[in-house]
C-alpha cells in the first residue's frame, strides 16, 4: 500500500499526486515509470514518474481522469492509499551535456517531458520548451516548466495562451530559423503529435527522443501487450523503452493499437458513471 501525501489539481480532471514510495524514489531516474492500481477491481495504469525526492522518499505522478480506472484514481484524496505501486520501470533516458535541447510537450505530455528537461538542464544543457494544449486552462505545470527552461513558447488550439495552433507549428518555425543551434529534440504527447514532431525534425536530421504510451498490463516484459515496432523490429515498450528514437517508431501502428479497447472503455466508463449516480 502506498499512501497519498499530497494532491494538487492542475487542470480540469488532471491531478498531481505525491506518493510515499521510498524504494521507488531511491531508484527513479528521468524516463522511468510506475504501474499503479487504485483498488482490486481497477486496471493497472502506467504512469510517468514526474518528479522524485530521494531524501523524502516520495514520487510525483500526474493522472488525467479519462477512463474508469483513472477516474477512480483521481477520486482518491490525501491520506488514501494505492493498493499497488510497482517501479521504477522502463529504461531511463541518458542525461548528458549535449548543448541545446528543444523539449516539446503536448497536453499531458508535460508530465514525461518535465523530468527529462529538468535533469537535462541540471546537466548543463540549454532548454527551449514548447508546451501546448487545447486551452490555457489545460496547460499543466506551467511554472515548473518555466523554471527549468531558458526559453519557453506556448501554443493552444484556441489561442488562449501563446500561439494559436500546434506545438509542431512552433517547432517548425524554430527549426527554420535556428536549426543549427539545436542538438536534440525531446517530444512527448499524443502519438499524432510525436509523429508530426518526428517528421519535422527528420528534415534536419535532428536526434529526436519520444516516449511511447501503448496499452500495458504488467510493465515487466511478460505480456507483450505493449509491443511497438521500432526500426522494423518488435520491441516491448515497458522494458525496451518507453523512450525511443522518434525517427524509427511506427506511429501508425501505435495509434492503431491504442484503440484496442475503445468499445470496452466506453462501456466501463458508462458503468462507472452509473455506479456513481446510484451509489
Amino acid at each position, binding site marked *: 500500500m502506498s499512501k497519498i501525501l499530497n494532491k494538487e489539481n492542475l487542470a480540469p480532471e488532471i491531478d498531481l499526486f505525491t506518493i510515499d514510495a521510498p*524504494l*521507488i524514489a531511491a*531508484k527513479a531516474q528521468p524516463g522511468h515509470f510506475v504501474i499503479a*492500481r487504485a483498488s482490486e*477491481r*481497477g*486496471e*493497472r495504469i502506467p504512469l510517468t514518474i514526474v518528479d522524485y525526492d530521494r531524501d523524502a522518499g516520495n514520487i510525483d505522478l500526474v493522472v488525467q481522469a479519462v477512463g*474508469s*480506472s483513472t477516474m*477512480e484514481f483521481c477520486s482518491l484524496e490525501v491520506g488514501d492509499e494505492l*493498493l*499497488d*505501486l*510497482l*517501479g*521504477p*520501470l522502463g529504461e531511463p533516458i541518458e542525461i548528458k551535456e549535449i548543448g541545446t535541447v528543444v523539449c516539446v510537450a503536448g497536453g499531458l505530455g508535460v508530465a514525461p517531458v518535465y523530468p527529462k528537461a529538468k535533469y537535462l538542464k541540471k546537466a548543463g544543457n540549454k532548454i527551449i520548451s514548447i508546451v501546448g494544449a487545447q486551452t490555457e486552462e489545460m496547460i499543466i505545470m506551467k511554472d515548473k516548466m518555466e523554471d527549468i527552461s531558458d526559453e519557453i513558447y506556448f501554443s493552444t488550439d484556441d489561442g488562449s495562451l501563446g500561439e494559436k495552433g500546434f506545438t509542431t507549428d512552433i517547432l517548425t518555425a524554430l527549426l527554420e530559423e535556428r536549426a543549427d543551434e539545436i542538438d536534440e529534440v525531446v517530444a512527448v504527447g499524443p502519438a499524432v503529435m510525436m509523429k508530426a514532431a518526428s517528421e519535422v525534425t527528420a528534415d534536419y536530421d535532428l536526434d529526436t527522443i519520444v516516449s511511447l504510451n501503448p496499452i500495458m*498490463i*504488467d510493465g*515487466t*516484459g*511478460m*505480456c*507483450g*501487450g505493449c*509491443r511497438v*515496432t521500432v526500426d522494423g523490429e*518488435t520491441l516491448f515498450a515497458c*522494458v525496451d523503452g518507453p523512450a525511443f528514437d522518434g525517427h524509427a517508431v511506427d506511429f501508425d*501502428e501505435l495509434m*492503431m*493499437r491504442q*484503440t*484496442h*479497447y475503445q468499445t*470496452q*472503455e466506453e*462501456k*466501463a466508463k458508462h*458503468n*462507472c458513471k452509473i455506479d456513481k449516480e446510484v451509489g
Partner: protein
Amino acid sequence: MTERQQMKKQKPEERINNFKEVACGFNKEEALAEAERCLQCKNRPCVDGCPVEVPIPDFIDKILEEDFDDAVDIIKGKNALPAICGRVCPQEEQCEIECILGKKGEPVAIGALERFVADFDLDSDKEEEINSVEAKGVKVAIVGSGPSGLTAAADLAKLGYQVTLFEALAEPGGVLRYGIPEFRLPKSIVDEEIDYIKQLGVEVKTNVLIGSTLTIDELREEGYEAIFVGTGAGLPYFLNLPGENLNGVYSSNEFLTRANLMKAYKFPEYKTPIVTGKNVAVVGAGNVAMDSARTALRLGAEEVSIVYRRSRNEMPAREEEIENAEEEGIDFKLLRNPVKIIGDGDGWVKELECVKMELGEPDSSGRPRPIAIEGSNFTIPVDTVVIAIGQGPNPLLSKKTPELETTEWDNIIVDEETYETSIEGVFAGGDVIGGAATVIAAMGDGRKAADEIQAYLQGKNE
C-alpha cells in the same frame, strides 16, 4: 479388477458458460472405492515416478482406514501444495504411468486421490499444526512466488530461517495465479496454499521487481545471506509473422493474465477488458494453448480452434486437458501452420493464413519434423488470435545483474548438484533454469535448492 472411478465433471454444455471448476473431485465413497484398488506393491513403482517421491501407497492406505488427517500429513511431508498438484500434475506421465495396474488395465487414480485428501484438509477447520522451530536469525530472500519459490520458502521457513518472498506482480502464485485458469485451478485454493506458507512465517512482499526496485546486490547488503531465484519463464514468444501486431492478436500470457489475474472475465465489474470475437484461433498445443482456447470459449467465442503444426500424438498438453477441450467443442486443426495474419484494413485481425503440413523424419527434439506442403495455403476467418507457442525466462533480472550467467536463451545457469548460480550464495530453480516446465518439477527444484541453501548457510556460519 474393479474399474477405475471416473471423476465427475461439469457437463460440457454447461461448463463452457462459466468459470467454475470443471472436475468436481471424488466424494468419500468414490475415494474409498478407488483406494481399494491399490495393490500396496512392495517395490512401489509409482513412488519412483513421482518427482518429489510422495509415499503414494502409504497415503492411499490411510484413505482406506478413513484417516484422512494422516493421509494429508504423509503427502505434505513431501509436497507442500497437494491441492494444486492433485489438479495440475501430469500424473499420466509420472506416477500413474508406473502403476502396476496400468500394465493390464487402468492405473490407480493417484492424482484424484491426492486431490481428495488435500481438499478434505482445506475443508476441515483443523488448525494447521506448525511445529515451531528455533529461529535461526538468518535471512533468506526468495525471488518469484511461483511453485519453485513457494516450495523453497516453505522448506526454509520450516528449518527456522527468516524468509522473505519478493514478487513482481500484485499477487503471489506465479503461473498458478496468472496463467492456469479458475476452471482448472480455483484461485481460492492458491490463496489457501499461500496462507499456509505465510503461517509458516514467510513474509510475502508483492509489487517488488528484483533487478529494478531492489537489486540482488542490495538484497545482500540488506543482510539476506542466501537468495533463491525462481522467476519462471514469463517472456512470451511470438511467431514473427506479418500482421502479428494487429489488434486482436494476443500472446497467451497477455490473454490469460487479463482473464485470470485481472479477472477480465468479470468485466465491467472488474475494469480490465479483453476482446474475444466470434472466431478465435489459438496457435500451439500445450497446456497453455488448451487453457487459452477454453478460456476464449468461456468468454463467449463461438468457434475456437487450436492450430498445431504436428499431429495429435505430438501435442504436449496433458491428455486430460486435450480431452476436456475436445468435449467442449474446440476444433483441432492439426498439421496446420500459420504463415501470415491478415488484417481488415482498420487495424484488426480478419484472417489467419495457414499452410498444411506433413510429418517427416524425427528432428533434434525427437519428434517428427513438420514439413510445409507447398501451395496448400488456406485462410481461417478469425477475430482473435492467441499465440501460445511457448515462453522463455524474462531477461530483466539477468540484464540488471551482469554477473549472473545465463544461456543464450536467458536460462540462468546453475550447478547441477547445488543449484548455485555463478554468484555465490545465489541459487535458482524452476522454469528459469529450463527443464521440465511443470509445477511439480519447479517444486522439486525449490525443495532441492532449499536443502542446498541450508547446507551452504551451515557451512558459511560455522
